[in-house]
Protein backbone atom coordinates (compact mmCIF):
# COMPACT_ATOMS: atom_id res chain seq x y z
CA UNK A 1 0.00 0.00 0.00
CA UNK A 2 1.30 3.37 -1.11
CA UNK A 3 0.04 6.75 -2.28
CA UNK A 4 0.32 7.27 -6.02
CA UNK A 5 0.04 10.26 -8.26
CA UNK A 6 -1.30 8.67 -11.42
CA UNK A 7 -1.35 10.39 -14.78
CA UNK A 8 -4.49 10.06 -16.88
CA UNK A 9 -3.50 8.80 -20.34
CA UNK A 10 -6.80 7.86 -21.88
CA UNK A 11 -10.51 7.89 -21.01
CA UNK A 12 -12.48 5.19 -22.82
CA UNK A 13 -16.24 4.60 -22.86
CA UNK A 14 -16.52 0.85 -23.54
CA UNK A 15 -20.25 0.51 -22.83
CA UNK A 16 -23.29 2.47 -21.78
CA UNK A 17 -22.58 4.27 -18.46
CA UNK A 18 -19.11 2.70 -18.24
CA UNK A 19 -15.79 4.48 -18.31
CA UNK A 20 -12.28 3.04 -18.37
CA UNK A 21 -9.56 5.33 -17.02
CA UNK A 22 -6.12 4.37 -18.30
CA UNK A 23 -3.32 5.72 -16.14
CA UNK A 24 0.44 5.82 -15.86
CA UNK A 25 2.27 5.38 -12.55
CA UNK A 26 5.69 6.93 -11.84
CA UNK A 27 7.03 3.49 -10.86
CA UNK A 28 5.97 -0.11 -11.33
CA UNK A 29 3.13 -1.24 -9.09
CA UNK A 30 3.06 -4.74 -7.71
CA UNK A 31 -0.51 -5.91 -8.39
CA UNK A 32 -2.43 -9.02 -7.39
CA UNK A 33 -5.75 -9.74 -9.15
CA UNK A 34 -8.67 -8.81 -6.91
CA UNK A 35 -6.85 -5.99 -5.12
CA UNK A 36 -8.25 -2.49 -5.23
CA UNK A 37 -7.35 1.18 -4.83
CA UNK A 38 -8.97 4.11 -3.07
CA UNK A 39 -9.24 6.94 -5.60
CA UNK A 40 -9.62 10.61 -4.67
CA UNK A 41 -12.91 11.25 -6.48
CA UNK A 42 -13.43 15.00 -6.24
CA UNK A 43 -13.25 17.99 -3.92
CA UNK A 44 -16.94 18.70 -3.43
CA UNK A 45 -18.78 18.12 -0.15
CA UNK A 46 -20.28 14.94 -1.66
CA UNK A 47 -16.93 13.46 -2.54
CA UNK A 48 -15.13 13.89 0.74
CA UNK A 49 -14.41 10.19 1.12
CA UNK A 50 -12.31 8.45 -1.53
CA UNK A 51 -13.95 5.70 -3.62
CA UNK A 52 -12.90 2.04 -3.95
CA UNK A 53 -12.14 0.49 -7.36
CA UNK A 54 -10.60 -2.81 -8.36
CA UNK A 55 -7.77 -2.48 -10.82
CA UNK A 56 -8.79 -3.67 -14.26
CA UNK A 57 -6.01 -3.87 -16.83
CA UNK A 58 -2.26 -3.42 -16.60
CA UNK A 59 -0.38 -4.00 -19.83
CA UNK A 60 2.98 -3.15 -18.28
CA UNK A 61 3.97 -2.87 -14.61
CA UNK A 62 3.60 0.91 -14.41
CA UNK A 63 0.35 1.21 -16.31
CA UNK A 64 -3.00 0.56 -14.70
CA UNK A 65 -6.63 1.06 -15.56
CA UNK A 66 -9.93 1.24 -13.72
CA UNK A 67 -13.31 0.37 -15.21
CA UNK A 68 -16.38 1.74 -13.53
CA UNK A 69 -20.04 2.51 -13.94
CA UNK A 70 -21.07 6.14 -13.45
CA UNK A 71 -23.40 6.00 -10.45
CA UNK A 72 -23.07 9.15 -8.41
CA UNK A 73 -20.87 12.17 -7.73
CA UNK A 74 -17.60 10.24 -7.28
CA UNK A 75 -17.77 8.23 -10.46
CA UNK A 76 -19.11 11.28 -12.33
CA UNK A 77 -16.02 13.20 -11.27
CA UNK A 78 -13.69 10.38 -12.32
CA UNK A 79 -15.47 10.18 -15.66
CA UNK A 80 -14.83 13.89 -16.20
CA UNK A 81 -11.04 13.56 -15.91
CA UNK A 82 -9.04 14.35 -19.03
CA UNK A 83 -5.79 13.03 -20.40
CA UNK A 84 -2.90 14.87 -18.77
CA UNK A 85 -4.66 15.40 -15.44
CA UNK A 86 -3.47 13.55 -12.37
CA UNK A 87 -5.32 11.33 -9.93
CA UNK A 88 -4.39 10.57 -6.35
CA UNK A 89 -4.69 6.87 -5.52
CA UNK A 90 -3.92 4.69 -2.52
CA UNK A 91 -3.12 1.02 -3.02
CA UNK A 92 -2.94 -1.73 -3.92
CA UNK A 93 -5.16 -2.72 -1.03
CA UNK A 94 -6.50 -5.95 0.43
CA UNK A 95 -6.05 -9.62 -0.30
CA UNK A 96 -6.52 -10.63 -3.93
CA UNK A 97 -7.47 -14.01 -5.38
CA UNK A 98 -5.20 -16.87 -4.29
CA UNK A 99 -3.85 -18.75 -7.31
CA UNK A 100 -3.98 -22.56 -7.44
CA UNK A 101 -0.76 -24.48 -6.83
CA UNK A 102 -1.07 -26.28 -10.18
CA UNK A 103 -2.97 -25.79 -13.45
CA UNK A 104 -6.75 -26.23 -13.19
CA UNK A 105 -9.90 -25.47 -15.12
CA UNK A 106 -11.41 -22.38 -13.49
CA UNK A 107 -14.71 -20.58 -13.97
CA UNK A 108 -14.60 -16.81 -13.46
CA UNK A 109 -17.94 -15.04 -12.96
CA UNK A 110 -18.23 -11.30 -13.28
CA UNK A 111 -21.45 -9.31 -13.24
CA UNK A 112 -21.76 -5.58 -13.93
CA UNK A 113 -19.17 -3.59 -11.99
CA UNK A 114 -17.75 -6.94 -10.85
CA UNK A 115 -16.06 -7.59 -14.18
CA UNK A 116 -12.81 -5.60 -13.67
CA UNK A 117 -10.90 -8.05 -11.40
CA UNK A 118 -11.53 -10.88 -13.87
CA UNK A 119 -9.08 -9.52 -16.41
CA UNK A 120 -6.09 -9.75 -14.10
CA UNK A 121 -7.22 -13.06 -12.68
CA UNK A 122 -7.70 -14.60 -16.13
CA UNK A 123 -4.28 -13.42 -17.18
CA UNK A 124 -2.59 -14.87 -14.09
CA UNK A 125 -4.39 -18.21 -14.35
CA UNK A 126 -3.64 -18.55 -18.05
CA UNK A 127 0.01 -17.64 -17.51
CA UNK A 128 0.24 -20.46 -14.97
CA UNK A 129 -1.21 -22.92 -17.45
CA UNK A 130 -4.79 -23.06 -16.21
CA UNK A 131 -7.84 -23.11 -18.45
CA UNK A 132 -10.20 -20.18 -17.97
CA UNK A 133 -13.93 -20.09 -18.58
CA UNK A 134 -15.06 -16.49 -18.07
CA UNK A 135 -18.77 -15.85 -17.59
CA UNK A 136 -19.68 -12.20 -17.98
CA UNK A 137 -23.08 -10.76 -17.17
CA UNK A 138 -24.85 -7.45 -17.61
CA UNK A 139 -28.29 -5.93 -17.71
CA UNK A 140 -28.28 -5.84 -21.51
CA UNK A 141 -25.90 -5.97 -24.42
CA UNK A 142 -25.30 -2.22 -24.23
CA UNK A 143 -23.93 -2.60 -20.69
CA UNK A 144 -21.54 -5.48 -21.36
CA UNK A 145 -17.88 -4.78 -20.56
CA UNK A 146 -14.66 -6.76 -20.70
CA UNK A 147 -15.84 -9.50 -23.07
CA UNK A 148 -13.35 -8.84 -25.87
CA UNK A 149 -10.59 -7.88 -23.46
CA UNK A 150 -10.79 -11.14 -21.49
CA UNK A 151 -11.24 -13.20 -24.66
CA UNK A 152 -8.11 -11.60 -26.09
CA UNK A 153 -6.12 -13.05 -23.19
CA UNK A 154 -7.03 -16.55 -24.38
CA UNK A 155 -9.99 -17.29 -22.12
CA UNK A 156 -13.22 -18.89 -23.25
CA UNK A 157 -15.93 -16.25 -22.67
CA UNK A 158 -19.69 -16.80 -22.34
CA UNK A 159 -22.19 -14.03 -21.86
CA UNK A 160 -25.53 -13.63 -20.10
CA UNK A 161 -27.86 -10.64 -19.98
CA UNK A 162 -30.98 -9.96 -17.94
CA UNK A 163 -32.96 -9.05 -21.04
CA UNK A 164 -31.47 -11.58 -23.43
CA UNK A 165 -30.09 -8.98 -25.84
CA UNK A 166 -26.78 -10.86 -25.78
CA UNK A 167 -25.93 -14.46 -24.88
CA UNK A 168 -27.94 -16.39 -22.34
CA UNK A 169 -31.04 -14.73 -20.94
CA UNK A 170 -31.05 -15.06 -17.16
CA UNK A 171 -28.71 -15.39 -14.21
CA UNK A 172 -25.02 -15.77 -15.02
CA UNK A 173 -24.76 -18.83 -12.77
CA UNK A 174 -27.06 -20.79 -15.14
CA UNK A 175 -24.14 -20.86 -17.57
CA UNK A 176 -22.34 -23.15 -15.11
CA UNK A 177 -24.86 -25.93 -15.73
CA UNK A 178 -23.05 -28.83 -17.38
CA UNK A 179 -19.61 -27.24 -17.06
CA UNK A 180 -16.93 -29.19 -15.16
CA UNK A 181 -14.60 -26.80 -13.37
CA UNK A 182 -12.16 -27.16 -10.45
CA UNK A 183 -12.72 -23.75 -8.90
CA UNK A 184 -15.06 -20.76 -8.99
CA UNK A 185 -14.03 -17.09 -8.70
CA UNK A 186 -16.80 -14.51 -8.57
CA UNK A 187 -17.24 -10.78 -8.35
CA UNK A 188 -20.48 -8.90 -8.81
CA UNK A 189 -23.88 -8.16 -7.30
CA UNK A 190 -24.80 -9.66 -3.95
CA UNK A 191 -27.45 -11.96 -5.41
CA UNK A 192 -24.98 -13.51 -7.81
CA UNK A 193 -22.35 -13.96 -5.11
CA UNK A 194 -24.89 -15.61 -2.85
CA UNK A 195 -25.83 -18.05 -5.64
CA UNK A 196 -22.16 -18.93 -6.26
CA UNK A 197 -21.73 -19.45 -2.53
CA UNK A 198 -24.71 -21.81 -2.44
CA UNK A 199 -23.45 -23.80 -5.41
CA UNK A 200 -20.01 -24.14 -3.88
CA UNK A 201 -21.18 -25.05 -0.39
CA UNK A 202 -23.71 -27.57 -1.78
CA UNK A 203 -20.88 -29.80 -2.94
CA UNK A 204 -19.78 -27.70 -5.89
CA UNK A 205 -16.21 -26.62 -6.58
CA UNK A 206 -14.42 -24.42 -4.04
CA UNK A 207 -15.21 -20.76 -4.63
CA UNK A 208 -13.63 -17.40 -3.88
CA UNK A 209 -15.81 -14.33 -3.71
CA UNK A 210 -14.67 -10.72 -4.12
CA UNK A 211 -16.98 -8.67 -1.90
CA UNK A 212 -17.94 -5.03 -1.86
CA UNK A 213 -18.85 -3.02 1.21
CA UNK A 214 -19.33 0.63 2.01
CA UNK A 215 -15.88 1.88 2.92
CA UNK A 216 -14.45 5.00 4.49
CA UNK A 217 -10.70 4.42 4.64
CA UNK A 218 -9.96 1.33 2.53
CA UNK A 219 -6.82 0.48 4.56
CA UNK A 220 -8.16 -1.04 7.73
CA UNK A 221 -8.36 1.78 10.26
CA UNK A 222 -12.06 2.70 10.36
CA UNK A 223 -13.66 -0.76 10.79
CA UNK A 224 -16.46 0.45 8.52
CA UNK A 225 -16.43 -2.25 5.86
CA UNK A 226 -16.97 -5.42 7.82
CA UNK A 227 -18.60 -8.71 6.85
CA UNK A 228 -19.60 -11.47 9.24
CA UNK A 229 -17.27 -14.46 9.51
CA UNK A 230 -18.70 -17.98 9.61
CA UNK A 231 -15.68 -19.41 11.47
CA UNK A 232 -14.34 -16.69 13.72
CA UNK A 233 -11.02 -17.25 15.47
CA UNK A 234 -12.17 -18.32 18.95
CA UNK A 235 -9.12 -16.75 20.58
CA UNK A 236 -10.41 -13.32 19.54
CA UNK A 237 -13.75 -13.70 21.32
CA UNK A 238 -16.56 -11.43 20.16
CA UNK A 239 -14.01 -9.26 18.36
CA UNK A 240 -13.61 -12.00 15.79
CA UNK A 241 -17.21 -11.86 14.60
CA UNK A 242 -16.46 -9.49 11.74
CA UNK A 243 -13.71 -9.29 9.15
CA UNK A 244 -12.69 -6.14 7.31
CA UNK A 245 -13.49 -6.38 3.60
CA UNK A 246 -10.71 -3.89 2.85
CA UNK A 247 -7.98 -5.74 4.73
CA UNK A 248 -8.84 -9.42 5.29
CA UNK A 249 -10.76 -9.23 1.95
CA UNK A 250 -12.07 -8.19 -0.46
CA UNK A 251 -11.59 -11.80 -1.59
CA UNK A 252 -12.85 -14.47 0.82
CA UNK A 253 -13.30 -18.24 0.51
CA UNK A 254 -17.05 -18.80 -0.03
CA UNK A 255 -17.39 -20.70 3.23
CA UNK A 256 -15.83 -18.00 5.38
CA UNK A 257 -18.37 -15.21 5.13
CA UNK A 258 -22.07 -14.65 5.81
CA UNK A 259 -23.67 -11.70 3.99
Amino acid at each position, binding site marked *: *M*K*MWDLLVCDVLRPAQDYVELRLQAPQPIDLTPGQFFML*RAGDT*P*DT*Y*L*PRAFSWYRSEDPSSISFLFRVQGPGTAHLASLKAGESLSA*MGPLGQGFPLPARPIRAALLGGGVGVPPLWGLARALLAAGSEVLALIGARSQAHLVGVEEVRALGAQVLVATDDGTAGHRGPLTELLVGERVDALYACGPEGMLRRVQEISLAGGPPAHLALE*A*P*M*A*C*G*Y*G*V*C*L*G*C*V*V*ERTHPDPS*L*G*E*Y*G*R*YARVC*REGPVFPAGEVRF
Partner: protein
Amino acid sequence: MDLSVFVAGLPLKNPVLTASGTFGYGREAAELYDLSVLGGVMVKGVSREPWPGNAPVRVARAPGGMLNAIGLQNPGLEHFLMVDLPFLRQYDTAVVVNVVGHDEEGFVEVVRGVTGQAGVAAIELNISCPNVKDGLLFSQDPASARRLVEAARRETDLPLIVKVSPNVTDPVQLGHACREGGADALSAINTLLGMAIDPVRRSPVLGNRTGGLSGPAVKPVGLRIVYDLAAQVGLPVVGMGGIETGRDALEYILAGARAVAVGTAVFRDPFAPPRIVGELAAELGRHGFESAAQAWAAANPQAREAVS
Protein backbone atom coordinates in the same frame (compact mmCIF):
# COMPACT_ATOMS: atom_id res chain seq x y z
CA MET B 1 9.47 26.37 15.40
CA ASP B 2 9.04 24.93 18.88
CA LEU B 3 6.00 22.69 18.64
CA SER B 4 6.24 21.02 22.04
CA VAL B 5 3.32 21.39 24.41
CA PHE B 6 2.10 20.01 27.70
CA VAL B 7 -1.39 18.61 28.29
CA ALA B 8 -2.04 18.14 31.99
CA GLY B 9 1.60 17.43 32.70
CA LEU B 10 1.97 15.13 29.72
CA PRO B 11 4.76 16.39 27.42
CA LEU B 12 4.05 16.09 23.68
CA LYS B 13 6.72 16.70 21.05
CA ASN B 14 4.08 18.42 18.97
CA PRO B 15 0.35 19.12 19.46
CA VAL B 16 -0.88 16.79 16.70
CA LEU B 17 -2.40 13.46 17.78
CA THR B 18 -4.53 10.99 15.91
CA ALA B 19 -8.16 10.72 17.03
CA SER B 20 -9.49 7.56 18.59
CA GLY B 21 -11.16 5.12 16.22
CA THR B 22 -9.70 6.54 13.05
CA PHE B 23 -6.22 5.08 13.37
CA GLY B 24 -6.76 1.62 14.85
CA TYR B 25 -3.74 0.83 17.02
CA GLY B 26 -1.33 2.40 14.57
CA ARG B 27 -0.36 -0.73 12.67
CA GLU B 28 -1.76 0.28 9.28
CA ALA B 29 -0.39 3.83 9.25
CA ALA B 30 2.98 2.50 10.37
CA GLU B 31 3.23 0.84 6.96
CA LEU B 32 3.21 4.35 5.50
CA TYR B 33 5.35 6.47 7.83
CA ASP B 34 7.22 6.45 11.12
CA LEU B 35 4.71 7.05 13.92
CA SER B 36 7.41 8.83 15.92
CA VAL B 37 6.64 12.03 13.98
CA LEU B 38 3.30 12.25 15.79
CA GLY B 39 2.63 14.11 19.00
CA GLY B 40 0.57 11.15 20.09
CA VAL B 41 -1.77 8.34 19.16
CA MET B 42 -5.22 8.11 20.75
CA VAL B 43 -6.01 4.45 20.16
CA LYS B 44 -9.35 2.89 19.23
CA GLY B 45 -11.60 2.46 22.28
CA VAL B 46 -10.57 -0.48 24.49
CA SER B 47 -13.15 -2.38 26.55
CA ARG B 48 -12.72 -5.05 29.23
CA GLU B 49 -13.89 -7.89 26.98
CA PRO B 50 -13.66 -8.04 23.19
CA TRP B 51 -16.62 -6.27 21.52
CA PRO B 52 -18.01 -7.23 18.12
CA GLY B 53 -19.30 -3.80 17.09
CA ASN B 54 -22.52 -3.10 15.21
CA ALA B 55 -23.96 -5.01 12.28
CA PRO B 56 -23.26 -3.39 8.90
CA VAL B 57 -23.88 -0.96 7.16
CA ARG B 58 -21.45 0.96 9.37
CA VAL B 59 -20.39 3.98 7.30
CA ALA B 60 -22.17 6.42 5.01
CA ARG B 61 -21.28 9.50 3.05
CA ALA B 62 -22.29 12.94 4.28
CA PRO B 63 -21.70 16.41 2.83
CA GLY B 64 -18.19 17.47 3.87
CA GLY B 65 -17.71 14.40 6.02
CA MET B 66 -19.18 11.04 6.89
CA LEU B 67 -21.35 9.10 9.30
CA ASN B 68 -20.17 6.06 11.22
CA ALA B 69 -21.85 3.52 13.45
CA ILE B 70 -18.93 1.20 14.15
CA GLY B 71 -20.10 0.50 17.66
CA LEU B 72 -16.67 0.24 19.25
CA GLN B 73 -15.56 -3.08 17.80
CA ASN B 74 -12.32 -3.83 19.64
CA PRO B 75 -10.27 -6.83 20.75
CA GLY B 76 -10.50 -6.04 24.45
CA LEU B 77 -8.02 -5.19 27.20
CA GLU B 78 -5.98 -8.36 27.22
CA HIS B 79 -5.32 -8.33 23.48
CA PHE B 80 -4.49 -4.64 23.68
CA LEU B 81 -1.89 -5.24 26.39
CA MET B 82 -0.41 -8.33 24.75
CA VAL B 83 -0.40 -7.31 21.10
CA ASP B 84 -1.22 -3.67 20.40
CA LEU B 85 0.59 -1.84 23.18
CA PRO B 86 3.91 -3.65 22.57
CA PHE B 87 3.63 -2.66 18.92
CA LEU B 88 3.05 1.00 19.76
CA ARG B 89 5.84 1.00 22.35
CA GLN B 90 8.32 0.78 19.49
CA TYR B 91 7.60 4.39 18.60
CA ASP B 92 8.57 7.61 20.30
CA THR B 93 5.04 9.01 20.53
CA ALA B 94 2.56 9.44 23.39
CA VAL B 95 0.07 6.57 23.53
CA VAL B 96 -3.30 7.67 24.89
CA VAL B 97 -5.58 4.74 25.68
CA ASN B 98 -9.22 5.43 24.85
CA VAL B 99 -11.35 3.49 27.35
CA VAL B 100 -14.96 2.36 26.94
CA GLY B 101 -17.36 0.31 28.99
CA HIS B 102 -21.02 -0.56 29.34
CA ASP B 103 -20.97 0.43 32.98
CA GLU B 104 -18.74 1.94 35.65
CA GLU B 105 -17.13 -1.41 36.46
CA GLY B 106 -16.29 -1.96 32.79
CA PHE B 107 -14.55 1.41 32.53
CA VAL B 108 -12.73 1.06 35.81
CA GLU B 109 -11.25 -2.34 35.07
CA VAL B 110 -9.69 -1.11 31.85
CA VAL B 111 -8.31 1.95 33.62
CA ARG B 112 -6.82 -0.31 36.27
CA GLY B 113 -5.51 -2.69 33.62
CA VAL B 114 -3.58 -0.12 31.62
CA THR B 115 -2.26 1.86 34.56
CA GLY B 116 1.36 1.05 35.28
CA GLN B 117 1.90 -0.55 31.87
CA ALA B 118 5.02 0.72 30.16
CA GLY B 119 4.23 2.91 27.16
CA VAL B 120 0.85 4.19 28.27
CA ALA B 121 1.11 7.98 28.46
CA ALA B 122 -2.46 8.89 29.34
CA ILE B 123 -6.04 7.66 29.47
CA GLU B 124 -9.00 9.07 27.55
CA LEU B 125 -12.40 8.07 28.95
CA ASN B 126 -14.88 7.90 26.08
CA ILE B 127 -18.21 8.82 27.62
CA SER B 128 -19.54 10.22 24.36
CA CYS B 129 -19.93 7.47 21.79
CA PRO B 130 -23.31 7.90 20.09
CA ASN B 131 -23.11 4.49 18.43
CA VAL B 132 -23.58 2.06 21.29
CA LYS B 133 -26.76 1.83 23.32
CA ASP B 134 -25.25 3.04 26.56
CA GLY B 135 -22.60 5.25 24.94
CA LEU B 136 -24.13 8.54 25.95
CA LEU B 137 -25.38 7.38 29.35
CA PHE B 138 -22.67 9.17 31.29
CA SER B 139 -22.68 12.27 29.11
CA GLN B 140 -26.36 12.92 29.50
CA ASP B 141 -26.22 13.20 33.24
CA PRO B 142 -23.39 15.26 34.74
CA ALA B 143 -23.77 13.59 38.15
CA SER B 144 -23.14 10.13 36.78
CA ALA B 145 -20.29 11.46 34.63
CA ARG B 146 -18.73 12.81 37.79
CA ARG B 147 -19.11 9.50 39.63
CA LEU B 148 -17.52 7.62 36.73
CA VAL B 149 -14.56 9.99 36.60
CA GLU B 150 -14.12 9.70 40.36
CA ALA B 151 -14.04 5.93 40.11
CA ALA B 152 -11.47 6.04 37.31
CA ARG B 153 -9.45 8.63 39.21
CA ARG B 154 -9.09 6.30 42.18
CA GLU B 155 -7.43 3.71 39.95
CA THR B 156 -4.82 5.75 38.15
CA ASP B 157 -2.14 8.40 38.39
CA LEU B 158 -1.95 8.73 34.65
CA PRO B 159 -3.19 11.96 33.09
CA LEU B 160 -6.95 11.40 32.84
CA ILE B 161 -8.64 12.97 29.80
CA VAL B 162 -12.43 12.79 29.49
CA LYS B 163 -14.01 12.96 26.05
CA VAL B 164 -17.23 14.91 26.38
CA SER B 165 -20.22 14.69 24.09
CA PRO B 166 -21.36 17.43 21.70
CA ASN B 167 -24.85 15.91 21.74
CA VAL B 168 -25.88 17.58 24.96
CA THR B 169 -27.53 20.87 25.86
CA ASP B 170 -24.62 22.07 27.95
CA PRO B 171 -21.14 20.61 27.35
CA VAL B 172 -19.65 23.08 29.83
CA GLN B 173 -21.77 21.73 32.66
CA LEU B 174 -20.57 18.25 31.72
CA GLY B 175 -16.99 19.54 31.68
CA HIS B 176 -17.38 20.97 35.16
CA ALA B 177 -18.67 17.63 36.41
CA CYS B 178 -15.63 15.89 34.94
CA ARG B 179 -13.28 18.40 36.56
CA GLU B 180 -14.96 17.91 39.90
CA GLY B 181 -14.64 14.17 39.45
CA GLY B 182 -10.89 14.56 39.07
CA ALA B 183 -10.26 14.77 35.32
CA ASP B 184 -6.92 16.32 34.30
CA ALA B 185 -8.07 17.34 30.84
CA LEU B 186 -11.02 17.22 28.44
CA SER B 187 -11.19 16.18 24.82
CA ALA B 188 -13.85 17.30 22.36
CA ILE B 189 -15.65 16.74 20.17
CA ASN B 190 -16.87 13.25 19.58
CA THR B 191 -19.21 12.81 16.58
CA LEU B 192 -22.58 14.53 16.19
CA LEU B 193 -25.60 12.28 16.11
CA GLY B 194 -26.86 12.15 12.52
CA MET B 195 -28.56 10.03 9.87
CA ALA B 196 -28.42 9.26 6.17
CA ILE B 197 -31.45 8.11 4.18
CA ASP B 198 -31.30 5.79 1.18
CA PRO B 199 -34.09 6.77 -1.20
CA VAL B 200 -33.90 3.43 -3.01
CA ARG B 201 -34.42 1.37 0.16
CA ARG B 202 -36.61 4.15 1.59
CA SER B 203 -34.93 3.83 4.95
CA PRO B 204 -31.81 4.80 6.90
CA VAL B 205 -28.52 3.77 5.30
CA LEU B 206 -26.83 2.66 8.50
CA GLY B 207 -27.63 -0.64 10.17
CA ASN B 208 -27.86 1.22 13.46
CA ARG B 209 -30.18 3.82 11.82
CA THR B 210 -28.27 6.74 13.34
CA GLY B 211 -24.53 7.35 13.30
CA GLY B 212 -21.91 9.87 14.25
CA LEU B 213 -21.13 12.77 11.93
CA SER B 214 -17.47 13.77 11.56
CA GLY B 215 -15.18 15.59 9.16
CA PRO B 216 -14.91 19.25 8.06
CA ALA B 217 -18.69 19.67 8.35
CA VAL B 218 -18.46 19.57 12.16
CA LYS B 219 -15.49 21.91 12.57
CA PRO B 220 -17.55 24.95 13.65
CA VAL B 221 -19.30 22.88 16.32
CA GLY B 222 -15.97 21.57 17.57
CA LEU B 223 -14.44 25.05 17.72
CA ARG B 224 -17.42 26.36 19.67
CA ILE B 225 -17.33 23.59 22.25
CA VAL B 226 -13.55 23.71 22.65
CA TYR B 227 -13.72 27.50 23.07
CA ASP B 228 -16.39 27.24 25.74
CA LEU B 229 -14.69 24.39 27.60
CA ALA B 230 -11.28 26.07 27.53
CA ALA B 231 -12.66 29.40 28.68
CA GLN B 232 -15.08 28.16 31.29
CA VAL B 233 -14.01 24.83 32.77
CA GLY B 234 -10.40 25.54 33.60
CA LEU B 235 -8.94 22.28 32.28
CA PRO B 236 -6.66 21.83 29.28
CA VAL B 237 -8.53 20.66 26.18
CA VAL B 238 -7.55 18.38 23.31
CA GLY B 239 -9.52 19.75 20.37
CA MET B 240 -10.81 17.80 17.41
CA GLY B 241 -13.54 17.74 14.79
CA GLY B 242 -12.90 18.34 11.11
CA ILE B 243 -9.20 19.11 11.29
CA GLU B 244 -7.73 18.71 7.82
CA THR B 245 -4.94 21.28 7.60
CA GLY B 246 -2.41 23.12 9.72
CA ARG B 247 -4.68 26.13 9.56
CA ASP B 248 -7.53 24.13 11.10
CA ALA B 249 -5.17 23.00 13.85
CA LEU B 250 -4.16 26.60 14.52
CA GLU B 251 -7.82 27.64 14.70
CA TYR B 252 -8.39 25.03 17.40
CA ILE B 253 -5.32 26.21 19.32
CA LEU B 254 -6.59 29.79 19.07
CA ALA B 255 -9.97 28.57 20.32
CA GLY B 256 -8.16 27.32 23.39
CA ALA B 257 -6.97 23.78 22.64
CA ARG B 258 -3.58 22.72 24.04
CA ALA B 259 -3.33 19.93 21.50
CA VAL B 260 -5.45 18.65 18.63
CA ALA B 261 -6.41 15.32 17.13
CA VAL B 262 -6.91 14.39 13.50
CA GLY B 263 -9.70 11.92 12.72
CA THR B 264 -11.72 11.57 9.54
CA ALA B 265 -9.09 13.43 7.49
CA VAL B 266 -6.92 10.28 7.53
CA PHE B 267 -9.53 8.48 5.45
CA ARG B 268 -9.18 11.03 2.67
CA ASP B 269 -5.44 11.44 3.12
CA PRO B 270 -3.61 8.74 5.11
CA PHE B 271 -0.65 11.11 5.46
CA ALA B 272 -2.78 13.88 7.01
CA PRO B 273 -1.32 13.74 10.56
CA PRO B 274 2.37 14.18 9.60
CA ARG B 275 1.35 16.70 6.91
CA ILE B 276 -0.54 18.73 9.51
CA VAL B 277 2.50 18.74 11.83
CA GLY B 278 4.46 20.47 9.07
CA GLU B 279 1.66 22.81 8.05
CA LEU B 280 1.04 23.86 11.63
CA ALA B 281 4.66 24.90 12.02
CA ALA B 282 4.38 27.04 8.88
CA GLU B 283 1.04 28.59 9.94
CA LEU B 284 2.41 29.47 13.37
CA GLY B 285 5.33 31.24 11.72
CA ARG B 286 3.11 33.06 9.24
CA HIS B 287 0.96 34.42 12.06
CA GLY B 288 3.93 35.63 14.05
CA PHE B 289 4.17 32.97 16.72
CA GLU B 290 7.43 31.55 17.98
CA SER B 291 5.96 28.37 19.42
CA ALA B 292 2.75 26.41 19.64
CA ALA B 293 2.54 27.15 23.35
CA GLN B 294 2.76 30.89 22.64
CA ALA B 295 -0.17 30.72 20.20
CA TRP B 296 -2.29 29.04 22.83
CA ALA B 297 -1.35 31.66 25.42
CA ALA B 298 -1.98 34.57 23.06
CA ALA B 299 -5.38 33.37 22.03
CA ASN B 300 -8.02 35.78 22.98
CA PRO B 301 -6.97 36.50 26.59
CA GLN B 302 -9.81 38.97 27.15
CA ALA B 303 -12.45 36.41 26.34
CA ARG B 304 -10.79 33.99 28.70
CA GLU B 305 -10.63 36.51 31.49
CA ALA B 306 -14.19 37.64 30.95
CA VAL B 307 -15.52 34.24 31.85
CA SER B 308 -12.97 33.08 34.37
